[in-house]
């Protein structure tokens, strides 16, 4: 016996949860961006942007490609947090981390410098973004953007 009404209600409920989560995640990212912008004397802007990775350098991918004998279409698109210099247009933006939002919003996965971390809720995501900022590689990238505005 089908139960389409229950399935319909369940889908609507899940969509509302996802919508609410994504709104919350967007708000966290906006706060993150504002704080970095202020802390960098308005030099750095952050945004989430789609990136392309040809994956030619990935050892895992090179081996897989040799197995399937197919070296075409091995690249992939993904979203990343990009930092850019808001003062000088000719400075190339720098990727801080890969960013992946789940179907229901959470988990949000951050990947950078050999770490992949999934965040299941708001407090965890904030903490993970703080960890990202504390990482020496991130500091180096942001500092290089600041130096290029002089």
């Amino acid at each position, binding site marked *: 016996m089908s139960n389409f009404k229950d399935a319909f209600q369940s889908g609507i409920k899940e969509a509302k949860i996802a919508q609410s989560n994504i709104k919350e995640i967007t708000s966290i990212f906006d706060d993150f961006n504002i704080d970095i912008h202020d802390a960098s004397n308005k030099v750095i802007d952050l945004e989430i942007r789609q990136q392309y990775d040809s*994956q030619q350098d*990935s*050892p*895992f*991918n*090179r*081996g*897989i490609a*040799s*197995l*399937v004998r197919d070296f075409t279409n*091995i690249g*992939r698109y*993904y979203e990343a947090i990009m930092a850019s210099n808001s003062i000088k247009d000719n400075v190339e933006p720098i990727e801080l981390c890969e960013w*992946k939002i789940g179907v229901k919003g959470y*988990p949000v*996965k951050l*990947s950078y410098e*050999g*770490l*992949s*971390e*999934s*965040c*299941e*809720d708001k*407090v*965890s*995501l904030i*903490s*993970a973004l703080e960890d990202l900022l504390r990482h020496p590689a991130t500091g180096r990238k942001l500092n290089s953007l600041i130096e290029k505005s002089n």
Partner: protein
Amino acid sequence: MSTATTQSVTLSWWNSSLSPKGGFRTKAHLEEAKAVILYLIKSQKVDFLAIGEVSETYSQVIEDLLFESNYEYEPCLYPSGKSKFNHGYIYNSEKISIVDREILKFKENNRSYRLGHAITLRTIYSEVPVLLIVSHWPSNLYENKVIKNKHGINLKRYIDDLRSNYFEESHIILMGDYNLDPFEECLTDYLLATRDRSLVIKKPELFYNPYWRSLGLSECSQFCGSYYYKSGNNTRWHLFDQIMFSAPFIKEYEWRLLEEGKIIGHQFLVEMITDHKKKFDHLPVIAKLEKINV
């Protein structure tokens, strides 16, 4: 049929109990741990040993043990909230290289949990890499079932992402101390690790878990699992240490399983872990892969 010219690689996992929670053990414990390492390398011909519970203190000891051999040691020591990754890899560098590494974690309520360490292995026999995910999940003493299940969900999610980014049928091996028996929900329902070898061929999203065959107290003589808990109420034996395989190993693409689901229960090891005066509590597990030459 295996011959002397077989191109094979033997993998093993052993929780050494050297540094539980980053602590130390006695000199006697250390000496016995060193003997186990040498036994695995020399007698069991292990090419790659992932060794659990080894803090930074013991890295130099292991390097010294391997001095002037063709084995190298690479520690995996990363902080994760209040705990840390504290294992390492002893490997035959004439056969195997580690070409990529990624720490896998998840956070909930601002607590960090260790999912595993994903390393890409290359052997001299094949261009095709093997992704090995080494895990040491929390004990039931410290985490509830919901959190334990989240480990399975998040690791499966990572693997799904990897498969969609790279190739659906990648060579992936999961190994470690899961603090779960093979039949527990987290491994069967969330990580999708099954006893049904032929079903893995039809459904490549499943992992083959050969350790199901080692369950069963009635078959037990000396040991009935890989983990011995001296104060166990219903059983003192559990099978927490496992090595699981993705479908290409079962379909025999590039590699086949020559030995699977094996626990190393040599008498001296069993005596070590059942001796109430000693702190060892895990037996090593082992798997052997054979390269297929078409």
